């Protein structure tokens, strides 16, 4: 313990010496006991403290996601057993609740962590291998909805799924011959069917599609102009003979054999079950003290690389994933398919929560689902200790600016203009564009923070070097 503290202190001194020559006014930086830090920040905040805080919060946010997923599965099971309108609403609400912690977890992506890379070696031990992680199975989108269940061909205007990869019998739920039993093993096996990355069959969005159905208009008609309503699935799609609620349908007025509704329920439960398994692996890897990745991530010799990973994840989520893939493409192509949570019209929360996750990482803070607030050493603190006070404030301001602008998207959706409506409406597009621009500015400041803290994100690939050994 003592050794660790010494190491941390000396590395801090080195970092400070390198960062600023001459008198920087930080008399407390030598670590004199009780000396006050800058701007109320403890001078004892070290890189290691920030890394440990980040790792603990990773555990908390993934654990919350797991808890919410288990709750979702419970509610889904109740719904499938008794497909009433009330239980249907409860299932949808449980899905929306489950997205709240998970949306904030995405800042843990793009950094060679468990969510992207966790798999098992030949002995069954957890290991990180580039691109082998469960992220796709958990949250990939757009979905191959036509591979899962019936879809409505909207006046020939709907874009087809890849015809190469669809089952002969139409879709997994309808094809009793090719898929006699719908299990979580089947869902995992059919994920990226035919090696086609577009064939997403599991995870949050598969469950979302099975709960909401395609996002047609409120009257079930399809026109290019979408409205405030989310997906158009009716509860009758889950009426089985056993439930005695009524006739099973695949879409309004399309009565089908009860077995189809049973299989739809099987699919829903299997997808929730698989989601739990996948999240459990990530939670285990991040468990403080025992999780193999937690231990690796917080090791003294890895602290610098881990700090780089934190910042890399923040930067790449800010710009490439959120501003780029999730917002800019949806905005400019006005394509519902490119909207993240298109069935439930919950994309505004994805955007807000992804941005929030970045803010959490910066502030070293996370509010758990039960309301408890976790706080620890932050990148803000570290920048101040490092002497980059102005940069610390600049980054704080940039992130707050993003949050303020993302909050407008979120609020507009709550006022009835879902994200797919926002991106079609000239007035409502403005907040979307402003948020993208704020994320762009924020990314540039994150880059400065990377330089100031003297970490190199470019070296990250070496961590997963499997070659030549």
């Amino acid at each position, binding site marked *: 313990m003592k050794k660790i503290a010494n190491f941390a202190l000396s590395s801090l001194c080195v970092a400070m010496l390198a960062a600023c020559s001459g008198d920087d006014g930080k008399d407390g930086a030598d670590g004199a006991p009780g000396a006050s830090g800058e701007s109320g920040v403890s001078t004892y905040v070290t890189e290691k403290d920030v890394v440990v805080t980040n790792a603990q919060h990773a555990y908390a946010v993934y654990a919350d996601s797991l808890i919410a997923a288990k709750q979702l599965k419970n509610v889904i099971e109740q719904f499938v057993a008794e497909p009433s309108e009330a239980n249907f609403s409860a299932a949808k609400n449980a899905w929306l609740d489950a997205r709240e912690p998970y949306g904030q977890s995405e800042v843990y992506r793009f950094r060679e962590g468990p969510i992207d890379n966790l798999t098992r070696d030949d002995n069954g031990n957890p290991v990180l291998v580039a691109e082998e992680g469960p992220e796709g199975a958990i949250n990939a989108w757009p979905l191959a909805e036509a591979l899962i269940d019936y879809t409505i061909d909207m006046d020939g205007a709907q874009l087809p799924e890849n015809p*190469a990869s669809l089952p002969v019998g139409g879709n997994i739920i309808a094809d009793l011959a090719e898929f006699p039993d719908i299990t979580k093993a089947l869902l995992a096996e059919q994920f990226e069917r035919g090696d086609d990355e577009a064939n997403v069959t599991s995870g949050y969005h598969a469950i979302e599609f099975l709960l909401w159905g395609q996002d047609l208009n409120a009257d079930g008609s399809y026109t290019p102009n979408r409205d405030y309503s989310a997906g158009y699935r009716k509860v009758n799609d889950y009426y089985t003979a056993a439930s005695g609620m009524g006739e099973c349908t695949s879409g309004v007025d399309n009565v089908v054999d009860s077995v189809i509704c049973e299989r739809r329920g099987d699919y829903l439960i299997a997808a929730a079950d698989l989601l739990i398994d996948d999240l459990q692996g990530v939670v285990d890897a991040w468990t403080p003290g025992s999780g193999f990745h937690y231990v690796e991530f917080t090791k003294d010799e890895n602290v610098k690389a881990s700090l780089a990973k934190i910042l890399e994840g923040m930067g790449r989520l800010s710009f490439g994933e959120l501003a780029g893939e999730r917002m800019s493409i949806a905005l400019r192509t006005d394509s519902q398919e490119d909207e993240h949570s298109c069935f439930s019209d919950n994309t505004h929360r994805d955007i807000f929560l992804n941005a929030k996750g970045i803010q959490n990482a910066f502030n070293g803070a996370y509010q758990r689902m039960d309301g408890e607030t976790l706080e620890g050493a932050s990148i803000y603190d570290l920048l101040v200790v490092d002497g980059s006070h102005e940069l610390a404030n600049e980054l704080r301001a940039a992130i707050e600016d993003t949050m303020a602008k993302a909050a407008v998207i979120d609020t507009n959706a709550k006022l009835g203009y879902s994200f797919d409506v926002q991106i079609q409406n000239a007035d409502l597009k403005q907040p979307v564009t402003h948020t993208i621009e704020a994320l762009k500015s924020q990314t540039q400041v994150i880059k400065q923070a990377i330089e100031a803290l003297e970490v190199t994100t470019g070296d990250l690939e070496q961590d997963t070097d499997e070659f030549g050994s």
Partner: protein
Amino acid sequence: MKRHLLLTSFMLSALGCGGSSQSPEAKPSEPQPPVVTLPGQPNDGLAPLSSSTPDNNEHLAGGAVTTDVQNEDAFSQSAPAIRSDFALDAVFKSGDHLFRGTHKGLGPVFNNPTCQGCHIKDGRGEVPSSPQRAMTSMFLRISDENGQPDAVYGDQLQTFGTVAGHPTGALPKFNGALDEGLAYGEAYAFVEYENITGKFADGEEYELRKPIYKVTDLSYGPFNDTVRFSARVSPAIFGSGLLHAIPEQYITSYADPDDVDNDGISGRAVYVTEPISEQTKLARFGYKLGTASVLQQIAGAYRGDMGVTNRINQAEPCTENQVACNEQAALEQNSEANGLDLSDLDLAQVEFYNRLLAVPARRGFDVQTSTWQDDVKHGRALFFDANCNGCHVPRHKTGEAPASLLGDVDILGFTGESTPIAALSEQVIYPYSDLLLHDMGGECAPIKLENAQGGSCQVGENCIYVKRCEGLADNRPEGQASGTEWRTTPLWGLGLVQQVNARATYLHDGRARTISEAILWHGGEAEKAKQAYLAMSKTERSQLLAFLNSL
């Protein structure tokens, strides 16, 4: 010993140097291509390659644009230099999303709704598992005997059409487009195989599968009387940005159209007009060298494979004789400027994505000890000894990688600048191709009309167009390539092809199930090299394959 041999061959090349650089078919009005110096020895400042001693960084197949990822995503990685640059990473990611996704304005006819559906995990497409499954990551090019597009069907058979009530695309239906006026897929193509056998010199037998291509269910009436087909499986796309960045004169230095060095290998450079700049440029992409740039290649694929029109290919893939296709096209709600399906921004981002896909590092090399596995090293020497490197030129050096002709992009739009791509520039790379046309031999029988039982057939729903060829020939001239000429396929990533897609096979039409079969199909200019393979001992063959699998 081997070094000596190599030097001798360079000297022969030097003696044979005749400045025969001009493509015989280049149009006289176009600017003349650069003069070739020293065939086989580009003036790129690199020491000649040794057949016995690999270069120092030869395991880094793409130079700095090399990825260590070796799993099924080996072909889908970005260049390390842009990975940690948030702005470039974002453009790459946007391009990746567009590459995976569907676009508005698909059709009226198409082969696949997404880029990724053909270039599976950015790697090769595949042959359908049975004649009952439609081709979706391969297709047939068609033309008349002179290589001109068919008057009705154009230059490519699209298997699917956009018809209401067919949410995944309407398959072809005999005379369906004529009788019902609906934009069905154009025709149904499938392949059947005939096994042929042969023997290595040591007596070991091998079996090849000879493809017979058949076309039925013509939706728009019969083909022209001299119709020609050529089957194509989608190629892998990684590393294309590096190939695009090799200076023309380095590539043309390998050209020897009249085989003046008398080694049995010629190699022909062809030139095409680059879109937008309208300049004459060396063609380097396409199985028959049809395009000069990644941009031209992807713009052609958008239009030809997906029916997604764009700035470079503005017409839907319907000929004027396809009424149903044109009527369906008129219903498309083209959302982009000038009535196009795809925006320039989308096109530029997908171009960037394609260009910046990294090349997998070689296997068989120990980074710690800087040593190659023995069999890989021996196999490499055998590759040189058999003069496989006469076409599959191992090494090139890139110059300054040109900026996109569309301009620099970020996630929201064009920046107004036009900057060379530093990550791709000045890299020593090992693609194992000269990017030139070679005569690969073989010949085809005239296409016949047959019924399902193989009997003769004149006309009607039960008649099937059947194409049989010997060797690799397709008997279909295309652009400046003849019916027996093909571009040398780059071999980098070869050993990972089935890691990326277990069902993938080799050669332009996927007929070869193994790398060994692919070698055995070589003929024409590669006949000598194939004979050398046939003459190898079992150990040597396995060493050669170990080397090829390490690529």
